[in-house]
């Protein structure tokens, strides 16, 4: 437990050295730094450093201290264990993190009982925020960022579709949400495939999609090996050559584009953050990030989520001072509207879920670099699942 | 077919083929209570195969094996042991990491049906240990009970092998080369041990050491190319021309 000793000793020193009225506000973040999802942890950390570089490490003299915990390879019980430890031992004022939905669900009891405001930095299943009144989401829900895509596709000439999603909860949510919009707009569904998570040879699935002769293929796969292999096979098997449009979501984040190579050109995706957008907030964000993490650093959904979460925490301390109750913090946060690098974001006061723009983008080559270019913007998109399921628990 | 009244083991027409190779052909064998039979034959005659067929380590293609009126040719090895058909091994198959006494006690526990006991086994296991010590002493290695088998001299390991066989209270004991690998200066130890075996057990001794066989056996069965060549008293065997020619290396079949 040495590192914790060092951490608390360091914290104690800092407390002593600053003026007597200064306090330390602790923000504990539980995220994967090892295992298959290690990228998330790295992106979180870079973004936090960038934020603190730009905005300083304290608010009104109160130090904002980030305490990290590595939850490893998707082990939800670890997540709960660290939450307890951070709340009881470290006495964190705000908790955050959670790459996957089970990680977030695992802490709901603990944060409810201890009334700890908890900011969800990724976990994207709609129901999560209903599991505790102290959850607040700054990322997105799958249903939210998929919802406009189906309608957009039909309006833009994609009249028939084949869907291919990884066989896990987010994949199925994405498929259902996409198809509901697509069918409502009058599109025709020619086939639905669910691909087991461990599959990386997509030849048979792509062959089925090719034979369906649909106008478009909607995919949803976890970032990493599965989505990379999916897109490569899409190109290689000639679906693209046959004129089929590739539609997706998080797979086409800028950070992953180099893994695909040029085969990804022309792919359509819908998400809540276009990395290359030209808002002044985004330019400042990317500049700070490259200063911290090198010139090749590319922000993604993780970076933007933690960036805005820190923004919320800083605002909270500015308004409420270093000492606040969980209820005060959550009430304050959910009433804010923030000019995020992704665009304006606010929260549904009842659900504590984020309301934000969703962008439809296309992968293009600009100055020899693959980036996403906005085609359409849907403003202030709420989580449709919650509106459709007002009473689900 | 004539079967002697006090026959404990009766084998008729036992056959085994490995592919096209017939390793055991129409073997008949009778063992009476307390018999002392030697089984000899040149290398590759199928002696060990025969033992494996009798004990059920190999399944036979044809033929019957009867112990005391029970047909056991289809039975599993462990069932045959329960019928009193017990063997010792040519090469050591002792539990090398276990103590000498435990090696025997495990066998005793198996025979006593204690070996399924997981909890509350204190008195039973103690009884097994006591009985094990008794067999060790019978084989004159009672002093070595606490030692690990791997620390035991080779000759004493061979005696332990026999002690384990005895501890199963066999009616028929198949001794597969008990003297193998023992320097000739120590061969008498094995002989003495064999002589001290309980008289009511029928014993089939498979051995290369002719001295030992001729000293111990009252009758000798000669196996050649999977067939029984002849069965006779030692004196006649040693003068049998056919047997001699086999051992001189010429084929007789």
């Amino acid at each position, binding site marked *: 437990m040495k590192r914790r000793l060092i951490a608390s000793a360091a914290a104690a020193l800092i407390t002593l050295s600053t003026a007597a009225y200064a306090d330390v506000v602790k923000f504990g973040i539980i995220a994967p730094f090892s295992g298959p999802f290690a990228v998330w942890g790295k992106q979180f950390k870079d973004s936090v450093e960038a934020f603190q570089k730009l905005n300083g490490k304290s608010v009104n003299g109160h130090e904002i201290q980030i305490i990290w915990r590595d939850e490893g390879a998707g082990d939800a019980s670890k997540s709960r264990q660290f939450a307890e430890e951070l709340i009881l031992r470290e006495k964190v004022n705000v908790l955050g993190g959670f790459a996957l939905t089970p990680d977030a669900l695992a802490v709901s009891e603990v944060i409810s009982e201890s009334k700890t405001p908890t900011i969800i930095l990724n976990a994207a299943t709609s129901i999560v925020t209903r599991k505790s009144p102290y959850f607040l989401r700054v990322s997105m829900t799958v249903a939210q960022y998929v919802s406009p895509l189906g309608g957009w596709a039909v309006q833009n000439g994609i009249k028939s579709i084949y869907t291919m999603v990884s066989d896990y909860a987010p994949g199925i949510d994405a498929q259902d949400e996409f198809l509901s919009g697509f069918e409502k707009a009058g599109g025709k569904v020619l086939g639905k495939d669910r691909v087991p998570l461990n599959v990386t040879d997509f030849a048979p699935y792509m062959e089925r999609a090719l034979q369906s002769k649909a106008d478009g293929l909607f995919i949803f796969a976890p970032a990493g090996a599965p989505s990379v292999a999916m897109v490569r096979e899409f190109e290689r098997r000639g679906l693209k050559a046959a004129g089929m449009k590739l539609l997706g979501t998080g797979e086409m984040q800028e950070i992953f584009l180099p893994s695909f190579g040029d085969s990804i050109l022309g792919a359509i995706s819908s998400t809540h953050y276009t990395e290359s957008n030209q808002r002044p907030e985004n330019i400042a964000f990317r500049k700070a990030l490259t200063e911290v993490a090198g010139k090749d650093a590319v922000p993604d959904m993780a970076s933007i989520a933690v960036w805005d979460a820190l923004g919320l925490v800083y605002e909270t301390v500015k308004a409420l001072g270093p000492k606040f109750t969980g209820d005060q913090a959550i009430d304050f946060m959910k009433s804010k509207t923030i000019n995020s690098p992704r665009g304006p974001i606010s929260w549904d006061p009842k659900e504590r879920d984020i309301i934000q723009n969703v962008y439809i983008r296309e992968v293009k080559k600009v100055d020899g670099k693959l980036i996403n270019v906005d085609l359409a913007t849907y403003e202030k998109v709420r989580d449709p699942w919650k509106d459709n399921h007002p009473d689900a628990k | 077919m004539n079967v002697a009244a006090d026959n404990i083991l009766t084998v008729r027409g036992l056959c085994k083929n490995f592919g096209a190779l017939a390793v055991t052909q129409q073997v008949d064998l009778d063992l009476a209570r307390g018999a002392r039979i030697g089984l000899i034959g040149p290398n590759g005659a199928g002696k060990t195969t025969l033992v494996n067929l009798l004990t059920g380590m190999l399944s036979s293609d044809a033929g019957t094996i009867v112990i005391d009126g029970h047909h056991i040719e289809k039975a599993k090895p462990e069932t045959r042991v329960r019928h009193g058909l017990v063997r010792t091994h040519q090469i050591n198959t002792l539990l090398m990491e*276990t103590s000498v006494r435990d090696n025997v006690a495990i066998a005793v526990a198996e025979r006593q049906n204690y070996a399924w006991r997981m909890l509350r086994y204190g008195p039973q296991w103690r009884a097994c240990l006591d009985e094990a010590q008794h067999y060790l002493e019978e084989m004159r290695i009672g002093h070595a009970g606490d030692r690990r088998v791997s620390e035991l001299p080779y000759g004493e390991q061979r005696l332990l092998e026999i002690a384990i066989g005895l501890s199963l209270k066999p009616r028929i004991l198949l001794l597969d080369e008990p003297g193998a690998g023992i320097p000739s200066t120590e061969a008498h130890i094995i002989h003495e041990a064999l002589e001290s075996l309980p008289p009511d057990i029928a014993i089939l001794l498979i051995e290369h050491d002719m001295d030992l066989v001729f000293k111990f056996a009252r009758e000798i069965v000669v196996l050649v190319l999977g067939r029984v060549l002849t069965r006779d008293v030692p004196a006649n065997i040693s003068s049998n021309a056919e047997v001699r020619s086999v051992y001189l290396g010429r084929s007789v079949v």
Partner: protein
Amino acid sequence: MTNQQQATTQQQILAPAAMSRPFSPAMLWHLLPWVIALIFFFVGDGYHSLGTNILVMILFALSLDLALGYAGIITLGHAAFFGAGAYAAGIFAIHFNADPVLGLLAATAIAGLLGLLTGMLILHTRGETLLMLTLAIAAIFYEIANHARWLTGGDDGLSGIRVTPVFGLFRFDLWGKTAFLYALSVLFIWFIIAALVVRSPFGRSLDGIRQNTKRMRAIGTPVWWRLVAMYSLSAAMAGSAGALTAQSTRLVGLSTLELLTSGIVAVMLVLGGERRLYGAFIGAAIYVVVQDFAGSISPFIWMFVIGFLLIIIVLFFEGGLMGIIDSVVAKLKGKADASGQTGKRT
């Protein structure tokens, strides 16, 4: 019989066989893990979940020690039973009864039954084939849990598990103190059972099967049945560990069934030393604590550390950490004494 043996005999009449040797001060060492656990209970605020997690992994590793260590059943699929126990306990609590002890018993029984059924199928085989079959079973269990979303929650995990107070008296508090003591009690009971079983005629016959199957056949041991029995017992125990994790975290994820989980528990066991019972204690505790520590320094340092540790232990320290401790103790005691201990390992 020597005097010592007679003394042993008299002791055995009075005490269960596991504690059958005459009392000596060295035996107080057996109290050490339990004393540490109790001290931890009083001073470990904020770490009780970590502690419970360690206890669960100890129990899981102990179960593997029975199957793999003592019986020599080479398996890389033990997570199948851990996960089955966890899901069984969770589903039982949600749909039938939230009593933790009933849930634990049900999960243990179900895991044991699954061990029995799969064991009967696969324990004819040995070595690499057996290894592959255990892998395949765990993979099939995983796919079932992944597909039966309506029952298991699939990839989102099983949540909403309720747990009533233990015996209607001790509520599972938020900070995991009750859960810790509960897990400790379950571990203690299983440890006593394991300690008795490995010294029993049954356990010794399995030790024999591991050393030499042919020998055991020759003394009339029904090898297959015996292996199936031990495998089921071990599966039941792994199921208990799974149930504990389900009840203490009120959550079951697919990761409980993963290949990596099977691998990690084997690593823990070998790290501590197999066929030593306490090896599971040391291995699981060190693994969890060091992972907690090293993992935070750098993402992949932990994999380096554990990888190198495994290589070094296998090449130079067979018997794991307990093996090192044993040899140090033996040296301290002096050679004469040490050689007297032959064949009696704890």
